[in-house]
């Protein structure tokens, strides 16, 4: 499995997936026509994705619903056969050597558990131990480690059907990592979880990445996951990659606007500062938006304190969430700008 150095762990080139479905013509004659002369409708889910992921990376693969995230993950895991392009995971074409590929990967689908519903958590783990032929001592060690790290001690013997979502997800993470795969795919792993469970899982992912060098591909809607864990993000929209790079870059390019929040000591109507745009005001608190590149924060702070009687001032940095939302609605222009 140890391929020659220098080859990225995961490579896709012009990866495509087109779903073909029979289109139903209206009316009773339409059904008949569909039987003899079916009309097909093609839906392009992934339209030429090329990326390279190095060993040990922790990549956020994000995009709106229907952008092609899950379809890409399904091709990487060997569930789906691509319609075109190339794909290699640790030197293996996943759908051709599905079983071999399966030994290299761990998968967590946030929406669907892979644990056995009726069984205590530990029985599912035992089954996985037998499936992967994990040596007894290594299994013991990993299990003890995971139980401690994910705080599963209290519910290890509880049937999965009686676990809370957060407990179940922790079980799913342990189940995905028990055979110590070099690659971990996470598809919406924190969906619907409370803060505590989210934190436990993020810490877990961080640790397996750091200590075992596990390469992690994370698909999520919760950008706080990405912000916390990933250095690199790949943004996909309508089946195409629209951004691939470090989070800082996307922040620099899009997060140019900062917000100055000012609290006045007395009600102030229509406050104004040159160089900043008033975004909102309720008389006591006002929010000014300004361009980081052209305006200096300290000048604005001075300006506002000279003009008004100010009680408190804060500067808000742009959040990834807002940036991404902006890109989806406005489109990404970074390619042209950086080219």
């Amino acid at each position, binding site marked *: 499995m140890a391929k020659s150095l220098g080859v990225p762990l995961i490579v896709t080139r012009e990866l495509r997936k087109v779903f073909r479905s029979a289109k139903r013509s209206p009316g009773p004659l339409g059904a008949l026509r569909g039987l003899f002369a079916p009309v097909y409708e093609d839906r392009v889910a992934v339209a030429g994705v090329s990326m390279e992921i190095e060993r040990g990376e922790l990549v956020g693969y994000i995009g709106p619903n229907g952008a092609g995230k899950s*379809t890409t993950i399904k091709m990487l895991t060997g569930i789906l056969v691509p319609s075109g392009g190339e794909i290699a995971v640790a030197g293996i074409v996943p759908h051709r050597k599905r*079983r*071999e590929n*399966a030994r290299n990967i761990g998968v967590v*689908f946030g929406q*669907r558990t*892979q644990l056995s519903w*009726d069984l205590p958590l530990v*029985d599912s783990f035992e089954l996985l*131990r037998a499936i992967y032929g994990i040596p007894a001592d290594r299994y013991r060690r990993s299990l003890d480690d995971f139980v401690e790290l994910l705080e599963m001690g209290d519910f290890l013997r509880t049937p999965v059907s009686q676990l809370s979502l957060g407990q179940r997800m922790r079980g799913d993470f342990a189940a995905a990592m028990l055979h110590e795969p070099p690659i971990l795919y996470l598809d919406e792993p924190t969906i619907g979880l409370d803060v505590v469970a989210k934190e436990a899982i993020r810490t877990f992912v961080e640790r397996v990445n750091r200590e075992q060098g596990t390469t992690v591909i994370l698909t999520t809607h919760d950008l706080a996951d990405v912000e916390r864990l990933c250095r690199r993000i790949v943004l996909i929209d309508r089946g195409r990659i629209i951004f691939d790079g470090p989070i800082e870059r996307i922040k620099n390019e899009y997060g140019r606007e900062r917000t100055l929040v000012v609290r006045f000591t007395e009600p102030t109507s229509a406050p104004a500062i040159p160089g900043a745009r008033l975004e909102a005001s309720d008389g006591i608190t006002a929010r000014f938006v300004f361009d980081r590149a052209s305006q200096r924060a300290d000048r604005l702070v001075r300006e506002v304190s000279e003009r008004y009687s100010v009680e408190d001032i804060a500067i808000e940095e742009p959040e990834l969430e807002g940036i991404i939302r902006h890109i989806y609605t406005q489109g990404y222009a970074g390619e042209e700008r950086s080219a």
Partner: protein
Amino acid sequence: MLAAYLQYWKINLLTMAEYRADFFMWLGFTIVYHGTALAALAVTMMRFPSMNGWSLREMFFLYALWMAAHELHNALFYNVMYVPEYIREGRFDRFFVRPFDTLFQVLTVPSRTFPDGFILGVVTLAIATGVAHVHLSLQTVLVIAAVVCGGAGIDLGISLFVASLSFWTIRVDTLRWAVMSLEQDFTRYPISIYTRAVRVVLAYILPFAFMNYFPASYLLGKHDAAFGLSPQVGLLTPLIGLLWSGCSYLFWRIGINRYQGTGS
């Protein structure tokens, strides 16, 4: 793979011990189910001392042969039933991310399948063998064992075929129930009592007749009046079981390929 299979059974049996009430409920259900069928048979036979030359004792053996095979199928392959559900609910994906054959993984999903029915079937078959005065020798015991395995193979082949259809997003529930009731209704009596069309279906299309009618005819030394075939056809059961399950497995593979193309 063997280690995984053994672990699966270990867990199954442990679960059986844990859910004892559940287990006894199922055992009770199985007893009532087969008991009712046998009672109905007895009631029918009070009116007719023999049916196309088959006595009640012999029909008890006929039923027990089917029961053992069918229950063996239930013990080993019952999970095939859940495949349409897995596909419909999007839970099928997970079988691709583990390093085993997809069907093997379906069969080893722990789902409270207990071998109680099979044990009951073997006991019933042993009793019926005595009641029907089947000549006992090492050879007949081996034949009976092979026929039971072959019969389970026929059952598996047919249920696997029906389940595989759901890869083409076909709703198979109705078909599954139709096939199941066909099996349950028409294996109880010697098929020689049915019309030609039914006999052809049961012998050549959905070969349930090979689960019990043909092998029972052979073991009881009965001449088959329905088809005019040599009694030795009853020995073909293992071969037909192998053929049906083998072909259905190929069909399953085609379905898997389709699933990997469409993802649904």
